[in-house]
């Protein structure tokens, strides 16, 4: 569970203010808002990359800005909008990087770590390209590998920054379906920023709409949400 307690976020001045917001595990949240409204700043704040101006963000009761980078990596994982792939880095080794917060200073993975990597890869159905070089994967395959890496990290929260921005329609659909499934099956709180309104309305449990006038986030359950309503509030 992630709790945002009376926070103000931004780099110098407050971009967004959120009074109180609780995001639960097992749910898939979609942040919707205009370009430049502060979605990425919100994501970077939740990831602990930038401090809050005011208030605190707790994940499972721990203030993420007052713990070490390693402790934070056990609470929140990140999937960027694009992973370019690295020559001579296999998909399996890339996914295994998600275990880094749990290894010692040498970074050597135990047998259980590799077992987890293979189990999650099997669950996501990506065994076919597990031994391929990441530089040879398609954009869709790389994105699923990034999600696998985040799952291997075994965190209660996974944050995705426009994960479907560079994908075609079929891949966008499959990634959204996958995230919906992962939130339920792995009991993870999934938060994604996206411009794919229709897909978010179809797959996400709750919309986190960034309201431009009050500069705050309004949570609306999918059951009570429509495309028109989101457009009216966010744009």
């Amino acid at each position, binding site marked *: 569970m992630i709790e945002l307690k009376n926070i103000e976020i931004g780099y110098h001045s407050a971009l967004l203010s959120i009074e109180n917001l609780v995001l639960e595990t097992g749910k898939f949240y979609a942040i919707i808002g205009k370009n430049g409204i502060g979605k990425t700043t919100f994501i970077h704040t939740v990831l602990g990359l930038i401090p809050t101006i005011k208030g605190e963000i707790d994940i499972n009761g721990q203030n993420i800005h007052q713990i*070490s*980078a390693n402790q934070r*990596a056990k609470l*929140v994982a990140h999937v960027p909008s694009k*992973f370019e792939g*690295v020559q001579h880095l296999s998909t399996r*080794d890339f996914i295994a990087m998600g275990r880094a917060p749990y290894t010692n200073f040498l*970074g050597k993975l135990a047998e259980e770590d590799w077992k987890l990597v293979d189990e999650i890869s099997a669950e996501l159905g990506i065994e076919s390209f597990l031994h391929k070089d990441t530089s040879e994967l398609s954009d869709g395959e790389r994105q699923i590998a990034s999600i696998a890496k985040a799952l291997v990290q075994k965190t209660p929260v996974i944050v995705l920054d426009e994960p479907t921005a560079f994908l075609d329609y079929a891949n966008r659909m499959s990634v959204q379906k996958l995230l919906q499934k992962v939130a339920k099956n792995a009991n993870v709180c999934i938060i994604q920023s996206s411009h794919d309104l229709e897909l978010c309305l179809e797959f996400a449990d709750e919309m986190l709409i960034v309201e431009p006038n009050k500069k705050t986030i309004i949570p609306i359950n999918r059951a009570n949400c429509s495309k028109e309503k989101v457009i009216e509030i966010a744009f």
Partner: protein
Amino acid sequence: MRMSRNIVSWSLIILLLALILIHVNGGIFGFNFGKIFSSIFHFDANDQSLIIYRELRIPRTFMAIFAGMGLSIAGLLMQTLFNNPLAGPSVLGITSGASLCVAITMMTGISFFTSDIGIVMIALIGALIFSLIILFFSMFVKSQISLLLIGMMLGSFTSALIQVLQVSSQANQIKAFTLWGFGSMQQVNFNQIPLIFGVFIAGVFALIFLIKPLNLLVIGEKPTQLLGIQMKSFRMLIIVVTSIFAGLITAYCGPISFIGLAVPNMVKLLYKTQNHLQLIIGSALVGACTLLFCDLLILWIEPYFVLPLNAVTALIGAPVVVWIILKKF
């Protein structure tokens, strides 16, 4: 794949041992283990052949091995830190920093700085300052090429400062500095080996703590930070280790170019991995073999004319760099 990497490593170890034996014998095929052993452990100052081994050959071979290893590892660290296959201690101006400080000490003639510890310290400080300058600029420039150009500008700036120093220096000081600038494995004596070895081992020890973050860094700085690595302290440790290797070697051998740039790229081609434990071992082996081979060429050509080391490393390294540019840019 792991099997083929092991074969590559073992082949390199055998090649390295062969090159060491030829090099320590003055470039001649034919070994005299007894003499080498005696020159180290039962040294007799009246035996001229032992003096040759102890004062000339062993320090020269030792320096070629450790300079090749150190510069290649420093190059690998820079290439991973800046995510740039053309990065290296000489390209980024780090050896220029060490050179500038050595030039100041040579031309001002302050006695502390011309002692062994003094020259190592001042070269390390110079390398460290210029590494920090490059690190500072890397926070503002996004393009890989821009950072290399800044490194080149640092090099030009340093050369200009050295020229200004030379104007007010004496002829013998300028001559000493110019010879040092050609790069050479012959400026080390037997008594300096423990100090060089000690500093080198300190750098290798610090490397152990870098392997895990370096392995993660290949996917980018932000992802590495989000996997639990404190980037600020990690970046500083990389800079310190690079400065130890680059500063130490520059102090004793002069500013050697191309090794730090070309060798890590050759190793990645050979090993086909992003595992930095293997890449470090590979860089150390290939770096030592390359520099021993370059110095052997000098030894073989020596009866006819004296070649500066930097000319040989450039003849071998420059085509490799052109190949990298054609392949990656």
